[in-house]
């Protein structure tokens, strides 16, 4: 489904640029969220580059392997990292139709994220430590609770295009519909909830806590150290950015380049950075005003996400067809 004639080699260049963009910008976005959060909480920010400093510091350190680990424990961090890097090829954000468009299906993407999460939980349980087990099973609980909502959001968004392929979704938005549809607005709200759950942010999980008993995502990483930990954390940063990019594609695609002219690519890039800038600040705001939910309140939270996404889905037929 070639919507726009592409020059294959140039398209691949853009795709590689996308990957580099995700790999190298993800820590900066993390840093930006940290900066805004620190400012909102009357603290002195550690700076945009702090996540980068952390990654470089961890990469220089030695790896200490816990007793009783298997190969799973060693393989998962690079796997996780490369799944995330690979996923960046599937989400069009610099241009509408990357060369991997035929497989750039949102359901594939959800599947990839699930695979990454499963691998992480399995590695956490590999050692049989109580915290790894606890983190693994909590993560899987959150995952299976958010997944229905994720798919519902996807279906709502694809109602316009009749396809879950991201390029065609993007294309359908450019066909003259008004940018604000009630169904998409509601689906966007659901997406925010899913985003917070999937990326272990407040109010589902507290990424900055030291209390091992309360952790979800971090509990899975407790036994990792050095470069392996760096890969895991770097991968999580990429995942956060990828989710934001997906959300931008679905709900705020304005400005994305439809051709390959340098000017439109540049405009698209600037628009994208602006959106990430705003969204990062929004995440920091949410994280500053909400307390963490009690763990057994998470089903209520994800049920709300599912309810909203279903509502969006139905609204499409009531108001928009």
């Amino acid at each position, binding site marked *: 489904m070639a919507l726009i004639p592409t020059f294959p080699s140039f398209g691949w260049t853009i795709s590689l640029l996308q990957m580099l963009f995700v790999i190298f910008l993800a820590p900066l976005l993390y840093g930006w969220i940290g900066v805004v*959060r620190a400012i*909102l*909480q*009357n*603290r002195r920010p550690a700076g945009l580059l702090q996540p980068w400093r952390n990654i470089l510091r961890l990469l220089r350190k030695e790896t200490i392997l816990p007793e009783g680990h298997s190969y799973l424990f060693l393989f998962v961090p690079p796997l996780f990292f490369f799944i995330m890097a690979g996923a960046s090829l599937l989400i069009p954000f610099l241009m509408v139709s990357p060369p991997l468009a035929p497989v750039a299906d949102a359901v594939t993407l959800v599947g990839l994220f699930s695979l990454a999460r499963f691998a992480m939980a399995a590695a956490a349980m590999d050692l049989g430590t*109580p*915290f790894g087990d*606890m983190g693994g099973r909590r993560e899987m609980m959150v995952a299976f609770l958010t997944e229905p909502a994720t798919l519902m959001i996807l279906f709502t968004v694809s109602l316009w295009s009749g396809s879950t392929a991201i390029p065609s979704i993007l294309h359908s938005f450019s066909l003259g519909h008004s940018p604000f549809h009630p169904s998409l607005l509601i689906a966007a709200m659901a997406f925010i909830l899913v985003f917070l759950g999937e990326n272990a942010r*407040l*109010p589902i999980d*507290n990424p*900055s*806590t*030291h*209390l*091992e*008993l*309360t952790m979800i995502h971090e509990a899975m990483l407790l036994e990792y150290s050095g470069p392996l930990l760096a890969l895991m954390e770097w991968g999580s940063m990429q995942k956060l950015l990828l989710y934001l990019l997906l959300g931008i594609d679905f709900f705020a695609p304005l400005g994305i380049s439809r051709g390959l002219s340098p000017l439109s690519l540049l405009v698209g890039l600037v628009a994208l950075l602006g959106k990430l800038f705003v969204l990062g600040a929004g995440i920091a705001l949410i*994280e*500053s*005003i*909400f*307390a*963490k*939910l*009690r*763990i*057994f*309140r998470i089903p209520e939270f994800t049920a709300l996400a599912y309810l909203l996404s279903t509502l969006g889905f139905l609204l499409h037929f009531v108001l928009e067809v």
Partner: protein
Amino acid sequence: MEGNNFSPETGFDSFHGAIPHATLSFDSPERYRGEAHFLAHSGARLLALWADSPSSIRASLILREGVVLLSLSLPKDSLSFPSLSSIFPTAGRFERTIADLFGLLPEGLTDLRPWSDHGLWLVPPLAEGRPSLHQPFAPEDYPFVRVRGEGVHEIPVGPVHAGIIEPGHFRFSVVGEKVLRLETRMGYVHKGIDSLFRGRTLFEGARLASRISGDSAVATSLAFSKAVEEALNIEVSEGIRFVRALLLERERIANHIGDLGALGNDAGLGVALSLFGPLRERMHRHNLTHFGHRLLFDTIVPGGVSTFLSPQMVDALLQETDDLLSEVSLLERIYSDHGGLQDRFQNTGILSPEIAIRLGIGGVAGRASGQGWDLRIDHREDPVHRFSPALALDHVGDVAARVRIRFFEIFESLHLVHALLTNFPGPDICSTLPDIPLSREGLGIVEGFRGEVLGWVRIRPGKTIESAHIAEGSPLLWHALEASVPGNLVADFPLINKSFNPSYSGSDL
């Protein structure tokens, strides 16, 4: 035995420091147990139980009317002492500590696992060469109580924790996320405080007393100083009493503010820490400029205080009090209006009034569970009683109740500080400490920020300490924590723990 029992109406013989107390000495284990039993039925709570030598067991009980110290003398060759654990459930760990230190067997105690001994002591360190029933064991072999059943597993936490806090081990038995049982294991910061006191001068003793648990420096050193003053039979002047009351309230306010910020942070509201933290830090800095130490170490000495309160300082502290009053009021509104925070606090970690009574919990935790004990209110101690602070009392016993109690006490203490400062009679000189011809004992008790802090001392001629003990109240709070966690989610434990905030150092001694 009937008729000889202690009577709260007539039995108190010492009124030093305005809180009545009495020491009852026993030679017979039966009389000792009988008296404890009788007092328990009169509503007494156990504060602490310790041995000041292999032949002398002490149990301090608190009644509404005052403090009773039961003192049991054992025969020289005795290898055991009677246990009070069937009367006071919290006595067990105190008695296990005695067993570890002195090699004495607590008779009637079913739980004879070691407590302070982590398998590193070849002989009981204070047994003084007598034969003992001590059995060496490997440190990793501590037999936690097992919960059996389908799907039950254990989560060991500590003694090294992820945050920078004190060491202690928690063993959770859980099904899924639900805690069935929590057992604590302490003793990692056993310092041998009682032995460190021996042979020291009174001022060295006061220095040590203020370092037992850093957050309660004023309370512990004040309890010690009051005990010394009773033993030496001296009264301190009005100005000194004012400064002491002021320092005690400042310590309470700073700790409550710190705890409230940490509670919000543990519930995931990071901004709470950066709102409460600076208030506490500002108090610490003022403590440093005005009183010479951020945590008020060594400000209280036997016979007086080591600081001075000038009119300029009074003005500065009044200003600070006014600022804190408005700032904490604002923060209280934020906390009570924050739905997410209240959802985490409410119905979490409930310590029911019945269990609070059974365990004899006082202080903040007790007052949040319907136990209206507060030495500042129950007794006519000058100068605090002149300004009649109100009792903070709640009946729910959950984390939210303990948060409310802390806020209430901050406001009461701020009003009290304000009253103390405006009525300050002017600085007074410290009393000189006279020597005594014979060894004498003294007892002091103070309402610290967690609860009652008890100091006991025996001084010998030459003004050196023959024996001393400080009980800070935290051992009881660990029991309260263990009682309130089962039924909650594992992930809520840090919040419940913080709402009690027991001291590790203060309970290990």
